[in-house]
């Protein structure tokens, strides 16, 4: 094959998978979402479920599969995609990095559009450096951490990271900007602008129908920007130095039969190959090709003016490939970090003693210890949640649970008959459940309690039944007692005082969300009473 063709095939594949990734990300929402089309059944018991394979990239990601297996002893659904990818990697090397990985594609694009360095400086920047061992260190730390019961692969996994960054920071950011324009247009007195506001109908299904907010999303976005900026220092800095998935695939490319063959005689030493190398894999003749570092982008093949380089399939003597350069220190440090981080993560007692009252996990979540073995912190449940209640944690779940999902009831509430987070969770940290399960078992995520000092009727400041009105259970978990309360002017007011029935309350939080007292509502949900934890139950 002509190298030019290979390059274009690669670009085509990269574009396809990046667009597929973005498409699936946008599709991670309520089905039949487009305002114009409502084709859903009227009376059936059928749940509103996600139809597309929105978790595909996670199933394709061997790091997600392997870390879930090591940590939660659970083979995630669709894991054979990852097995297939590992088999391909065994024969063809890190083709995932060069052809598929959407984060890699973004790095590639940035490095391509605006190369960080020029000429000789680029040549020296693309020499292999010991820093490339960092990714092996991170991989080993992640895998040992998984074995120790805390799965933090998702913090560094490129698929999880890209999904989280785009879904929680980039899209809501753009969405907020778009929305302000719409509000301005709709509020304008010019008829023409009023009409243009209907363009919102087209954009809202992509960017959200309301302002999407995610607590501390700025931090997720900032890290994403930094990772993108690193391309100014070295092309595909992330892929070379940091990506644990790249490291895993590098290990698996040990026996690749797709090899870079070098013709020393033809080489004029022009360094065009090194200048274009994305992975700092030593493409020039006279150096040994680092197959574990090679991102299989075919740039060197294409760049060589003399035809001294060629990728060929060679079955013979796979052992002649170079061993991945992990470095003993990286391995040892990785083991040390992998063992100690989960232990440090336990010290706050959230798993073994008492959970933070604000740590309200999505319905269907496994008990906290098991949850942490599977959650990839990818943000899929947060993206899909129709009420925007699921947010990434900062401190609520402790260090081990950083960026895992929790429910912030002042931002939204858990819809009584919604099952989407369980549908989409790629690893089963949120076990799938049906509407029936949710209502009849029932799945409790916490309990509501009333802050009588803030509550309008309790404090004598007037009638209000908003919490009771919205309570979705039947019979309602919030009930009234009629009583007389002294008002501010000394008048005796006949009011309905709300009470919570803990047996019925499922902790959905709609009462907290709709309470007229904003910010710190007069009725609030805490995690106590959640059915996933035996220790955290209240009633016998």
């Amino acid at each position: 094959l002509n190298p030019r063709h290979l390059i274009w095939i690669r670009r085509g594949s990269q574009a396809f998978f990046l667009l597929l990734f973005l498409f699936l990300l946008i599709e991670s929402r309520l089905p039949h979402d487009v305002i114009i089309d409502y084709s859903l059944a009227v009376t059936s018991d059928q749940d509103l479920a996600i139809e597309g394979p929105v978790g595909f990239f996670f199933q394709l990601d061997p790091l997600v599969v392997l870390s879930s297996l090591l940590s939660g002893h659970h083979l995630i659904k669709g894991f054979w995609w990852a097995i297939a990818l590992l088999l391909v990697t065994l024969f063809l090397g890190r083709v995932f990095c060069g052809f598929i990985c959407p984060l890699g594609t973004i790095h590639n694009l940035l490095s391509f559009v605006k190369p960080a360095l020029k000429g000789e400086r680029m040549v020296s920047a693309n020499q292999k450096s010991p820093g490339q061992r960092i990714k092996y260190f991170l991989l080993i730390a992640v895998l040992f951490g998984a074995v120790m019961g805390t799965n933090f692969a998702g913090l560094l996994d490129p698929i999880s990271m890209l999904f989280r960054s785009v879904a929680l920071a980039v899209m809501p950011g753009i969405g907020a900007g778009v929305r302000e324009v719409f509000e301005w247009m709709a509020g304008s007195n010019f008829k023409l602008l009023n009409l243009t506001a209907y363009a919102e109908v087209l954009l809202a299904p992509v960017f959200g129908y309301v302002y999407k907010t995610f607590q501390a999303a700025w931090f997720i976005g900032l890290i994403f920007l930094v990772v993108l900026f690193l391309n100014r220092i070295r092309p595909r800095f992330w892929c070379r130095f940091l990506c644990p998935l790249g490291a895993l695939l590098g290990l698996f490319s040990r026996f690749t039969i797709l090899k870079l063959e070098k013709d020393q005689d033809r080489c004029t030493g022009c360094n065009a190959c090194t200048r274009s190398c994305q992975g700092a894999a030593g493409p020039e003749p006279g150096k040994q090709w680092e197959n574990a570092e090679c991102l299989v982008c075919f740039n060197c093949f294409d760049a060589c003016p003399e035809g001294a380089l060629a990728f060929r399939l060679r079955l013979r003597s796979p052992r002649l490939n170079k061993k991945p350069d992990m470095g003993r220190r990286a391995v040892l440090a990785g083991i040390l970090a992998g063992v100690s981080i989960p232990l440090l993560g336990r010290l706050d007692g959230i798993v073994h003693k008492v959970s933070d009252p604000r740590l309200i996990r999505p319905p269907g979540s496994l008990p906290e210890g098991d949850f942490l073995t599977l959650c990839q912190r990818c943000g899929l449940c947060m993206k899909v949640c129709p009420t925007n209640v699921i947010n990434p944690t900062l401190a609520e779940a402790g260090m081990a649970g950083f960026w895992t999902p929790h429910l912030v009831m002042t931002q939204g509430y858990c819809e009584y008959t919604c099952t989407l987070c369980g549908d989409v969770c790629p690893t089963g940290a949120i076990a799938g459940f049906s509407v029936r399960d949710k209502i009849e078992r029932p799945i409790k995520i916490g309990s509501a309690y009333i802050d009588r000092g803030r509550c309008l009727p309790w404090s004598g400041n007037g009638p209000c039944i908003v919490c009771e009105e919205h309570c979705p259970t039947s019979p309602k978990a919030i009930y009234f007692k009629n009583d007389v309360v002294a008002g501010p002017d000394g008048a005796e007011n006949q009011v309905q005082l709300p009470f919570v029935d803990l047996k019925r309350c499922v902790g959905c939080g709609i009462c907290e969300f709709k309470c007229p007292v904003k910010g710190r509502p007069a009725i609030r949900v805490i995690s106590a009473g959640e059915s996933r934890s035996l220790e955290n139950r209240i009633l016998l």
Partner: protein
Amino acid sequence: MNEGITRRSAIKRMLGISGTVAFSALTGWPFGGVVDLRAENTGRRFMVEGRGRTRDYSVKALVNKVFDEAGGIARFISRGDVVAIKPNISWARSPDLAAATNPEVLEGVIELCYEAGAKKVRIADHTIHDARRCFAITGAGSVAKMTGAELVFPRSSLMKEMKINGHRLDVWPVFIPLVEADKLINIPVAKDHGLSTLTLGIKNWMGGVGGRRYALHQDIHQTIVDLAQFFKPTLTLIDATRIMVSNGPSGGSASDVMVRDTLILSNDQVAADALAAGLFGIKAEDLGFIRLGEKWGLGTSDFRKLNLKEVIL
């Protein structure tokens, strides 16, 4: 002499121009942009009560019959009208739980409107649960799809502050499609309610506004009467095919529901509610919003005074 424009004078001029624009925008807002197109509800007051007595009667046929008895849809909807329909689809509950307007009633009315030559029919409700889920689960979505009516998503940009001129409410954000229409039809479902005792036609206007509407509950009877007075529907059609008798307004269990197979059509909001209250065995004068509605002249609670007709299918 043709003098060049200095930077200073250019800035001055620009400030002048933008200031004028801003000032005119300020003075015009928020009442300039939205014009109440609806004519005052005139004509004799009437009331039709339709009951489905036969087994497997068709709800749509009952809707047709009720409108026929009232003098035909053409009496209310003219050719080329934009019709806004305000159902109660606030809760994402399936139709059999009676938390939302029966989709068959909705469908029947929309088809009649189109038959009468309506240019456009819009279904608009500011839902409580996520609107997309409400649209799908209450069946309003499929009705929109089948009939070709436009189901308006309650976007925040469609909530505009308007002068309510009520006794309790002055200025409040209103869901604009309900105002920018030639005719407005209120199609509530009859339900139990923890604060207002019942939610019928007048209470349904809570779903026609935005803003801090949870605060309206602090004086619910007066605020919903203010809203009813503001919206002035052409017609009110109370859906009592299934009514929610307990655990309202959200319900959630089949045991909360009673089948009454009744539709109440009137151009008097108060009278329609008064008649519907009887279905729950509640006296009209015990309901605060009916008393207030009558007091402020929205209608009469003594529905027998109206030209009450009954149809049975």
